[in-house]
């Protein structure tokens, strides 16, 4: 019964918008819900580009990649309420793990762009590809000790991908930066 009950739910989207202009006290609950739905579509609509981006997300599926899950995000360690200014030096540490492979990176915001300095451990790779959803991936060479750097990425959901020497592709879980 879940998922497809839109038309059977009281106040469902299928019913006509009714009751506008009448007294609020006489507006039935279902009509009020429908009216609020119409107002929301006017005052705070879902951007059309979001539907397009959500559909396009499907093409970014990589069924062969092993997912490195986000295991630590310094943003989640920070106090929620803090009176502070946003400065150039604000950096965020992210750690991703796929079994033995660990990708750690420091994300620095510079206006609308992001710089990433990271390290790959528990595996070797020639390059890391940084991909912001909807943009072509940007490759960076992996240096000694697994270090890599990517600069000037646009902000948005990001994943890092690399092909390990043993033939396994590792992709980090999508994370907005």
């Amino acid at each position, binding site marked *: *019964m*879940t*998922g*497809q*009950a*839109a038309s*059977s*739910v009281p*106040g*469902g*989207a299928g019913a006509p918008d009714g009751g*506008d*202009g009448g*007294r*609020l*006290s006489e507006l039935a*609950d279902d009509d*009020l*819900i429908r009216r*609020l*739905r119409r*107002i*929301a*579509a006017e*005052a*705070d609509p*879902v*951007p059309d*580009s*979001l*539907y397009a*981006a*959500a*559909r396009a*997300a*499907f*093409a*970014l*599926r990589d069924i062969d990649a092993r997912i490195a899950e986000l295991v630590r995000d*310094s*943003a*989640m360690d*920070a106090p*929620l*309420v*803090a*009176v*502070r*200014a*946003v400065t150039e030096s*604000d950096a*965020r540490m992210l750690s991703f793990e796929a079994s033995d492979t660990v990708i750690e990176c420091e994300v620095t*915001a510079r206006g609308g762009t992001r710089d990433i300095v990271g390290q790959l451990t528990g595996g070797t790779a020639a390059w890391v590809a940084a991909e912001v*959803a909807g943009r072509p991936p940007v490759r960076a060479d992996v240096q000694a000790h697994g270090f890599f750097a990517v600069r000037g990425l646009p*902000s948005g*959901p990001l994943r890092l991908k690399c092909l390990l020497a043993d033939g396994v592709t590792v992709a980090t*879980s*999508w*994370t*907005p930066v």
Partner: protein
Amino acid sequence: MLGPSWLVVDDSSNGELVAAAAAGDQKAWDVLVDRFTSLLWNIARQYRLSPADAADVVQTTWLRLVENLDRIADPERLAGWLSTTARRECLRASRRPDLPRPGDDFAVIPDDGPAPGERLLRDEQDAALWSALARLGEACQRLIRLLISDPPPSYAEVAIILDMKLGSIGPTRQRCLNQLRKLASVDGGLT
């Protein structure tokens, strides 16, 4: 092998759609997107995020589902999985060091669109209702914003998303709407 895409229709169950999408069916994916994007938007907009950050959260939620299509244990609880993922990402976004947050006196809010309700509503009663919705208690706001998603979730999904008893949704909705009427009437001088 799963059915061909012409078998996927707008009223297929979430389980059928997830299975078809996992088998590579873009049409099934699109139906899921149409079914839940408004719901996720309404969840994300309850947090103090700019429209651009809310859109990032919703897009990330879909990307996470793409990543986990083979691992969704109970597709009939998909609405719960999506909303949990979205809320976690909202929390993350609201704590990111590079984003302004309430209390940041010096932060410059990126000018990427109007805040909720700032887009002009010409009808006076509409404006009073919209403003009243933003002043409802948190629990009521959560419920009403879910219910005004387009398409709205089923009550079973609302129960999962908000961790409520199925039988309490109807009475709670009634109580919240009565509060909303009162707030809008006082505010807008309407009756």
